[in-house]
C-alpha cells in the first residue's frame, strides 16, 4: 500500500454509565502505560490527534481518547430527545471510571483539559488509588465566568459559530493558524446545547474550592499545566489551586492558551514529555 496511514485506530464500544447504556467512540495508539485523554467542553477526541501521532509518546504509552456521550461520534444515551443535557460532577466522574473499567485499564494515567482538568482534580480527590498519575491541563478548582452561557444555545444565534468565536480568544496568538482553526472547527461541530451543558458542570456543579483536602500526591502524582494565554482558567487560578494540594507540581506554559494539545502540539510536548517521562520512571 502506498498511502501513509496514521497509527491511530478507532473503535466503538458500549457500556453503562449511571444505568444508561452508551455507545462510545474512542481512538487509541501506542502501547505501554494506559494514558486516558479527556477533551474540553463542547469538543471531542480529535484534540488529541497529535499526541496519538507522537512516537515519543506512543512508544511508551497506550494513548486512549474517547468522545464523551453527546460528543463527537458518541451518541447520547437512548431517550436523549426528551432531556436537556447537563453534565454534573458525579456523571463526569462516573463516565471516566466507566470507560476505564470497560477497557479494563489498570491504574491508567488520566490527562484532561479544561473541564477535563477540573475533573482530574476530582479524580485525585476520590480515586487516586485507581490512577497511576493525573495531569490537569488548564485545571483549577474554580474560575471566574467571563460570559453568559445562555448565548450558546438560542434560536437567533448559530450555536456552533458562537461557541467557536467565544473560545477563539483562548487560543494563543502564537499558535499555528492551521491548528487554531482545527480547534475552532471542533467547536463549530458540537451538538446543539452541548457546550452549554458541559459548562453546567464547569460553572454550577464543580466549585471545588475547599473540597480538595486529602489528595495524596505521594500515592498518585498530580501535574498541573496551564497556558499563559488562557484567560478562562488563568495561571493564577491554577497556582491558587495547587497551593491547596501538597505535592502538586505546576508549570505555566509559555505561548499557549486553553487548548495546548490541539492548538500548538509542538509547544505543548515540550512541557508534557518531561511529565510523561517522570511518570514512567516512578
Amino acid at each position, binding site marked *: 500500500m502506498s498511502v501513509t496511514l496514521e497509527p491511530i485506530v478507532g473503535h466503538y464500544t458500549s457500556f453503562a454509565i449511571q444505568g444508561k447504556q452508551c455507545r462510545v467512540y474512542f481512538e487509541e495508539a501506542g502501547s505501554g502505560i494506559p494514558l486516558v485523554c479527556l477533551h474540553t467542553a463542547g469538543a471531542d477526541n480529535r484534540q488529541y490527534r497529535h499526541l496519538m501521532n507522537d512516537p515519543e509518546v506512543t512508544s511508551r504509552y497506550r494513548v486512549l481518547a474517547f468522545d464523551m456521550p453527546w460528543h463527537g461520534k458518541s451518541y447520547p444515551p437512548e431517550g436523549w430527545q426528551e432531556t436537556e443535557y447537563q453534565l454534573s460532577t458525579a456523571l463526569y466522574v462516573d463516565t471516566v471510571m466507566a470507560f476505564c473499567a470497560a477497557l479494563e485499564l489498570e491504574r491508567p494515567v488520566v490527562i484532561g483539559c479544561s473541564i477535563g482538568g477540573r475533573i482530574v482534580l476530582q479524580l485525585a480527590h476520590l480515586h487516586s488509588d485507581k490512577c497511576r498519575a493525573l495531569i490537569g491541563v488548564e485545571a483549577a478548582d474554580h474560575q*471566574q465566568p*467571563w*460570559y453568559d452561557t445562555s*448565548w450558546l444555545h438560542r434560536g*437567533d*444565534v*448559530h450555536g456552533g*459559530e*458562537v461557541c*467557536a*468565536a*467565544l473560545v*477563539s*480568544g*483562548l487560543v*494563543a*496568538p*502564537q499558535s499555528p493558524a492551521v491548528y487554531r482553526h482545527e480547534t475552532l472547527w471542533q467547536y463549530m461541530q458540537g451538538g446543539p446545547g452541548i457546550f452549554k451543558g458541559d459548562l453546567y458542570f464547569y460553572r454550577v456543579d464543580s466549585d471545588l474550592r475547599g473540597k480538595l483536602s486529602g489528595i495524596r500526591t505521594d500515592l498518585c502524582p498530580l501535574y498541573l499545566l496551564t497556558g*499563559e*494565554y488562557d*484567560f478562562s482558567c488563568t495561571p493564577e487560578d491554577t497556582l491558587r489551586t495547587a497551593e491547596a494540594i501538597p505535592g502538586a507540581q505546576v508549570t505555566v506554559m509559555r505561548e499557549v492558551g486553553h487548548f495546548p494539545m490541539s492548538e500548538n502540539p509542538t509547544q505543548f510536548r515540550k512541557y508534557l514529555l518531561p511529565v510523561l517521562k517522570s511518570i514512567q520512571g516512578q
Partner: protein
Amino acid sequence: MTRSNAATGAQLLQRFTQVASSFAKPRAVQVDMLVQFAEVPVIVRIRDGRVTEIVQRGVALQSWDFAVKGTAEGWSQFWLALPPAGWHDLLALNKRGAFTIEGHLQPLMAHLQFIKDLLASPREEAT
C-alpha cells in the same frame, strides 16, 4: 506598554480607519456598531459583510446596535503583533476591564468572529 506611551484616541481611530474601511467578508452582516477609542467614538456601519462607513459622532440621536469601548492602552496592546496575555482578545480585554461591551448584543453574538476580526484588523504584522 504603559498608559504614558499609548496612542491617543485620534491616532487609534486613524489607524483603525486606514485598515477597517476596506474590511469585508462574505457574510450577511448588517450592523451599526459604536466603537470608542479612548475618548473618541465613531459609528461603524456594516452592510452585507462590508464596512460601508466610519462616521464620527457629531449629530444628536444617532443610533447603534451595540458598542465596544476601549481604553487607549487596551487598543494599543490589542493591536501589537503579539499582544501580551490578557490583552490579545476582545473578551479578554472585557474581562480585565480595558474594554466594555454594551447595548443590544444579539447582532454581536450572531457575528462574533466577524466583529472580532474587524476590530483586530489593524494589528501589526508579526515579523
